[in-house]
C-alpha cells in the first residue's frame, strides 16, 4: 500500500521508519517554534517537570511576535522571560520583537526544508506545509515535552486529498480558494486530517500563495497540510537555505485517502470570497456581501501579510485615496517583507493612499494592539479568524477576505469586489 505525504514524513521521523494512518507513533521533531506561550505557560510547566536543559538549542526557534513591541506590562514580562530563557539555554534561533510573525520568519531563516517535521506552539503552524513539510500546532504541555526531549507522539492522521486545476483569475487570490474550500468542509470537516493539495493550480502558486492555503487549513480542523513540492519552493530553498540538505518527499500513486475533493477552475471559475462573522468557514461569493459598510480594513497576519499581498493591495490603491472614515491598516508579515516593500516603493503607495503602516506583529489580528476594534465596528480583514471578539470588542464584526478585496473595500468604504475597481 502506498503512503500519503503525512505518513511518509512522519515515518521518516520514527525509530522503525513506519507510520500508517491511525497508528500512534513516537517521532523526533526537527524544529520546535515557541512564541509568547513560552513565557506565559510553558515555563511554569517546565518548572514542574524539573527541566534543566533544552534537548537541542539549535532546533528551537523562539519568537516574540504577538504583541511586538510589548503593548503592556503583561506582554513585556512575557517577552522578558522569553529573552532570559533564550540566554540561559543558549538558543541560537531567536526572533525578538523586531523580526516579525513567526510563520513568516521561520521560513525566511531557512528553518523549514522539504520533508521536515515541525511543531509550533501556535495553531497556524500548519503554514509550513507549503514547503513539503509536516507541521502542526500543539499546546503548552506538548511543547514543554518537546523542549525537554525533542520527541512527541502522534496519531498518524488520515489524509484528505484535494485536487485543484486550472487558473485563478486576475484579482482573485489563493485566499479566495481556501475560503471556498473550507466553506465546503465546515469548521470540523477535516478534523485531525492531513489536507493534501494537488493539481496544476497549487503547482503554479508562489510560496506565499501556498502558505496562505496551508495556514487556513486549521480552520477546517486539519492537523497538517503538507503539499507536494513545486518550482517556487525550490527557488526559495536556494535563496533562503542554500547550505541545507534536503530531499523532496513525493506521494505514492496508490496512497490511501479518506476522501477526495476536486475543483476545476475553468468549469467553475473562482470568485473573490468573503467569510462573514463569526466563522472562517462562512465564506460566500463577494457579490453576496458587497455593500456592507466598514470602519476598518486590515491587511496583515501570517495569512496574508506577505510581499505578494502588499503588492496586490498597492496595485489597487495606487494613486487613489482610502474612503473618508475608513482606517486602512497594513502590518507586513516580517521586517524583511517591510524592507522589501519599502525598497520597491510599495509602502509609499500604501501611505499615499491613506494607509497606516505598522511594524510587523500579530497585533490587530489577535486583538492585541495596533488596530483593535471598538463596539459595533466592522472590519474587512485579510487575516484567518473572524470569531466574535477576535480583533477587539465582542460586538465588533470581522469579514475575512483577500488583500485585494480588503484594498478595494478600503477605497469604497463598503465591502467591494476587487475586480470592479
Amino acid at each position, binding site marked *: 500500500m502506498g503512503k500519503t505525504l503525512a505518513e511518509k514524513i512522519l515515518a521518516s521521523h520514527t525509530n522503525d521508519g513506519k507510520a500508517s494512518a491511525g497508528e500512534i507513533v513516537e517521532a523526533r521533531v526537527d524544529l520546535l517554534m515557541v512564541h509568547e506561550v513560552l513565557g506565559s505557560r510553558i515555563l511554569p510547566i517546565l518548572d514542574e517537570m524539573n527541566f534543566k536543559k533544552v534537548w537541542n538549542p539549535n532546533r528551537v526557534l523562539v519568537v516574540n511576535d504577538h504583541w511586538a513591541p510589548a503593548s503592556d506590562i503583561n506582554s513585556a514580562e512575557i517577552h522578558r522571560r522569553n529573552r532570559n530563557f533564550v540566554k540561559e539555554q543558549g538558543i541560537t534561533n531567536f526572533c525578538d520583537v523586531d523580526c516579525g510573525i513567526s510563520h513568516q520568519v521561520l521560513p525566511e531563516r531557512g528553518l523549514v526544508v522539504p520533508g521536515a517535521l515541525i511543531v509550533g506552539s501556535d495553531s497556524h503552524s500548519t503554514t509550513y506545509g507549503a514547503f513539503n513539510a509536516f507541521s502542526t500546532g500543539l499546546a503548552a504541555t506538548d511543547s514543554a515535552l518537546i523542549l525537554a526531549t525533542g520527541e512527541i507522539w502522534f496519531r498518524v492522521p488520515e489524509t484528505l486529498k484535494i485536487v485543484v486545476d486550472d487558473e485563478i483569475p486576475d484579482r482573485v487570490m489563493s485566499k479566495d480558494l481556501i475560503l471556498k474550500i473550507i466553506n465546503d468542509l465546515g469548521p470540523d470537516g477535516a478534523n485531525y486530517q492531513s489536507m493534501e493539495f494537488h493539481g496544476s493550480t497549487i503547482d503554479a502558486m508562489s510560496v506565499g500563495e501556498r502558505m496562505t492555503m496551508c495556514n487556513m487549513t486549521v480552520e477546517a480542523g486539519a492537523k497538517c497540510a503538507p503539499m507536494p513540492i513545486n518550482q517556487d519552493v525550490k527557488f526559495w530553498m536556494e535563496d533562503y537555505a542554500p547550505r541545507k540538505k534536503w530531499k523532496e518527499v513525493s506521494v505514492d500513486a496508490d496512497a490511501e485517502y479518506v476522501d477526495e475533493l476536486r475543483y476545476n477552475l475553468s468549469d467553475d471559475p473562482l470568485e473573490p470570497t468573503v467569510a462573514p462573522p463569526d466563522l472562517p468557514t462562512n465564506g460566500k461569493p463577494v457579490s453576496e456581501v458587497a455593500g456592507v459598510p466598514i470602519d476598518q480594513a486590515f491587511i496583515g497576519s501570517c495569512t496574508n501579510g506577505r510581499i505578494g499581498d502588499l503588492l496586490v493591495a498597492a496595485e489597487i490603491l495606487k494613486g487613489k485615496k482610502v474612503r473618508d472614515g475608513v482606517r486602512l491598516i497594513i502590518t507586513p508579515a516580517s521586517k524583511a517583507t517591510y524592507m522589501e516593500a519599502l525598497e520597491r516603493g510599495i509602502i509609499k503607495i500604501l501611505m499615499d493612499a491613506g494607509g497606516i503602516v505598522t511594524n510587523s506583529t500579530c497585533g490587530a489580528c489577535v486583538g492585541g494592539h495596533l488596530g483593535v476594534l471598538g463596539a459595533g465596528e466592522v472590519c474587512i480583514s485579510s487575516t484567518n479568524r473572524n*470569531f466574535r471578539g477576535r480583533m477587539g470588542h*465582542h460586538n465588533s464584526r470581522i469579514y475575512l477576505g483577500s488583500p485585494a478585496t480588503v484594498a478595494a473595500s478600503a477605497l469604497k468604504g463598503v465591502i467591494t469586489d476587487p475586480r470592479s475597481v
Partner: protein
Amino acid sequence: MGRKYKIAVLPGDGIGREVIPEAVKVLNEAASQTGLKPEIHEFECGGQYYLKHEREWSEEAEEFTKNEADAILLGGIGGVDQSGNIVRLPDGNLAGYSIVIGLRQELELYANVRPVKLYHGVPTPLADKGPSDIDMIIVRENTEGLYIPARGRVSEPDRELAFDLRLITAKGSERVTRFAFDLAMNRNGAPVDKQRRVTCVDKSNLLAGCKLFRESFDRVSTEFREVSKDYAYVDAWTLLVLRRPEFYDVVVAPNEFGDIISDLGGAIQGGLGVAPSGNIGETHGMFEPVHGSAPDIAGTGQANPVAAILSSAMMLDWLGTKHNDAKATQAAEVIRCAVESVLHEGQDRTVDLCRGRWQNVKPASTQEVGVAVVKRITR
C-alpha cells in the same frame, strides 16, 4: 437628564447595618459626580426585624424589592437575640432566609458572581503573588444543585440517616455557563497570557449532574471560539489556584462547588473584607458583600466597608450594561478608582487589612474608611 434608578437597600443585621451606610454614602457621592440619580429605598429586614415584627421584612419592603426596584443592595442577614442565639424561623431556617436565599429562586438570580481581584495595598496569603497575578471572576450557579430544598432525615431506633438531593438541569447549566462566557468576552483575559479563558470546575468524573453541567459548558463554548476552554476537577482546582492563580480568568461551577471555591477566592484576594458579589439573573440583580452579618464583630466598628462599597460598584456596572447607561458605568469606575487609591495609599484601613507590610498602620473604623473613599471621590 440621567435615568433614575430605584435601589432597594437592605442593610439587614449585624455589620450589614454598619457597612451598607458607608456604601450608600460612597454611592451617592459617585452618583453626584457623574450626574446619576439613584433613588435609595431603605428597608429593615432579617433577624432583628423578625424579633420585633415576627416577619422577615415588611410587606412594603417585599413588594418594592421584588417588583419595583431596579437593583438590590443587601448587607448581611443573621441576627442574634438577647441571649446570643441566632434568630431562627419556626422551620429552623435562619430568619432572613427568604431574602438572602429565597430571592435567588424567586427572582431567578442564577449567576452568583464573585470577582477575585487583588488590589494594591491588600495582603494576600500567597507568597510571591501580587496584584498582577490575581484577577479572576468566579461564577457560581445559584439556583439549583445540592442546595435545592429537597432534603430529609430518617431517624429510627437502629439507624439514623440524612439525604440531600442534588438536581442539575441543562437549562440551568447552559444559562450560567453562557453568562460566564459573556463575561469573559468583556474582560482582557487571564493575567498569565492575556488569553480569554473560562474554566469549568466540576466533578464530572463521578457525578451525573456534573457530567450534564460539563456537556452544557461544551455546547455553549462553541458560540465563543475566541475564548479558550479549560476544565478542572474541583478538588484539583483548589490546589491549582493556589499555585497558579494567574492562569484563571473566569471560572464557572455548579452551586455547591462554586460556593466553596469562591470562599477560597475570597481568601486569596485578601479576605472577605474586600470581597464583593452579585446575584444576577435576566431581569433582577442583587448585590452584597460576601461576609454576611458577622455577629462576632458587629457593633465594634471593625467591619471593613470595602466589600459593600465594591458591591455597590458592581451594581452600577450591571445597571450600566443592562440599560446601556454610560453614567452608571462611569460612576462604578469612579467608586472602584477611589477604593483602589485608598487601599494603595494604605493609611485608611480596617483592622483586617493591618497585616504584613501594613501591620503598623493604626486601624481605622468602618466609618473612617467610608469617609476616606468619599473624600477620594470629591478630591
